[in-house]
């Protein structure tokens, strides 16, 4: 097993052990949200940070995963790890389809189409009574799980596993031929195309992977929240957070989204409790605008600049 994966799993085990030591269920509830944002931010960054194509529809892919779970749950209940695979597959297919229709054109069209995708999928779900329609759907979760204990700890552990998968994927891409291919698209797509880089195929791989990971992050969500409404699954906060977190952390490596998600995610957990959720969304929006103007390479970029200045 590669060293990176071993370190990640060890870190994940430490996080889980630490959370159990505190022994308060709230830690798991809040931690789950932060972990979920790490997966979303990392997934967004695979497309946005590595290839430079902006996806505004994170909420749509996330909700697709969540609603795939609701659908399967109503039809034939399956264990959550399987649901995660199904949710991921559904979102990956939609990501591929969207990419195929729009990525052959100018980059902006893809961004616009993803923005509209959220509105359309929400329309579909609102009109689809089987998954609850506009009223929403209840998912009754068991209280306990064998071996682990409280159900929220089980969900937390699953999300932790997803974080490990997402980070390993992102870092693996960065150091592979795929990652260099993505970087050529980001830097100069025309030149890359002229040099024989299969840009469309690479872009489709990126959208599929990115969409799939978002769907996987969304799949356990109905069990977490217990009552899934279209407006909560398609919430704009998912779209804005999954863009803001990599942008604030730094988009060029897997560390950026991780830092951004931990910082912003924790900040929001604190702000939601102490101030109000509308104010904390405002903070995220202002941070996003401020960072893209002032620190285009995010926190990672700031640190790198500082180190470079010192070494000179």
């Amino acid at each position, binding site marked *: 097993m590669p060293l990176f994966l071993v370190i990640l799993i060890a870190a994940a085990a430490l996080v889980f052990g630490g959370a159990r030591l505190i022994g308060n269920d709230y830690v798991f509830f809040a931690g789950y949200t932060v972990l979920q944002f790490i997966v979303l931010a990392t997934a967004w960054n695979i497309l946005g940070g590595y290839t430079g194509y902006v996806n505004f529809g994170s909420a749509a892919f996330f909700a697709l995963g969540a609603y795939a779970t609701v659908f399967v749950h109503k039809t034939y209940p399956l264990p959550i790890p399987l649901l995660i695979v199904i949710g991921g597959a559904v979102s990956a297919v939609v990501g591929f389809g969207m990419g195929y229709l729009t990525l052959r054109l100018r980059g902006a069209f893809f961004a616009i189409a993803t923005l*509209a995708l959220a509105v359309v999928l929400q329309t579909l779900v609102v009109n689809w009574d089987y998954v609850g329609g506009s009223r929403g759907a209840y998912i009754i979760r068991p209280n306990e799980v064998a071996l682990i204990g409280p159900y929220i700890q089980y969900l937390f552990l699953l999300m932790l596993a997803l974080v490990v998968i997402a980070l390993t994927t992102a870092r693996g891409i960065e150091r592979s031929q795929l990652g260099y291919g993505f970087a050529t698209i980001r830097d100069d797509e025309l030149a890359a195309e002229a040099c024989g880089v299969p840009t469309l195929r690479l872009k489709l791989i990126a959208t599929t992977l990115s969409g799939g990971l978002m769907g996987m992050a969304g799949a356990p969500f109905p069990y977490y929240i217990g009552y899934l409404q279209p407006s909560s699954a398609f919430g704009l906060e998912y779209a804005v957070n999954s863009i803001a977190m990599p942008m604030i952390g730094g988009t060029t490596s897997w560390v950026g989204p991780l830092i951004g998600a931990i910082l912003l995610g924790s900040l929001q957990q604190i702000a939601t409790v102490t101030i109000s959720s509308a104010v904390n969304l405002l903070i995220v929006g202002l941070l996003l605008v401020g960072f893209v103007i002032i620190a285009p390479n995010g926190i990672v970029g700031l640190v790198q600049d500082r180190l470079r200045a010192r070494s000179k």
Partner: protein
Amino acid sequence: MPVRGGQRVGLSFDLVINALIAGILLGGFYAAVTIGVSISFGILDIVNIAHPAFIILGSYIAYIINARLGIDPILISITMLPAFYVLGAGVYQIYYESFERRGQEALRGLSFFFGLLFVTEVSLILVFGVDYRYVEAPYIGPSWHIGVMDFPLRMLVPCLAALAMFGALELFMSRTFLGRAIAAVAQDQLALRLMGASPIRIKRIAFGISIATTAVAGALLIIIQPVEPSVGREYIGRVFAICVLGGLGSLPGTVIGAMLLGILESFTATFYGPSWAPAVAFGVLLLTLAFRPAGLLGR
């Protein structure tokens, strides 16, 4: 009677003709909403996804002044044009300094506008809450009837105002030096520079005009329907669908695209139920991108 849920209904002539009229009136209004994006996205290549946020801002200004002083919303929006123009020019200046000059408009420029959209929406929610707001005007309520045809003034007045705005802009773009210079920005910036006009200044003016149209579009929106801060989101898909359908950069194309989408949405709402209408724009957008990316009257 039309029934929700896609059930087959008898096509009565009255229903079809009134759906058509409603669609055309709605399309006229959509033209007002889209014409600004047609300038910013179509001509200047600036993907201003925050456009609907400015429209909602226009709606709220119309609402505040209308509620306090009882002035006609369209009149308010005309007096607001200079303020919105300055706002637009300011936003362009920030956009140019931070992104366009550094060649980072793709990723960070888009995120900037997305952040702007989000910040505006959340700020409006914090100040006004999520209650629906509306305006008072003599033409909201009554309608004209010609035979079986129904012209609600609430829709007719915005449609006419939108067409008037389109006419004024089209005249400006084709008859004045500035208007032609704006069109030239899209074609050849170097040639423009050789003619002694600064592309940055021209783009700033054009973007200012594009945001100025949102003052009017916002007032028209709040005449047509009650507005709350997140209504703008529904217009993102519509606005860009119309823009692409009509052909980027073509103002007459925008009006035709707007009318087509208005009619399609109106028929969808009449025969399948209004909750399906938002999906129409997206379908149109995807189909256009897949089969005719240049749009109907594309350059």
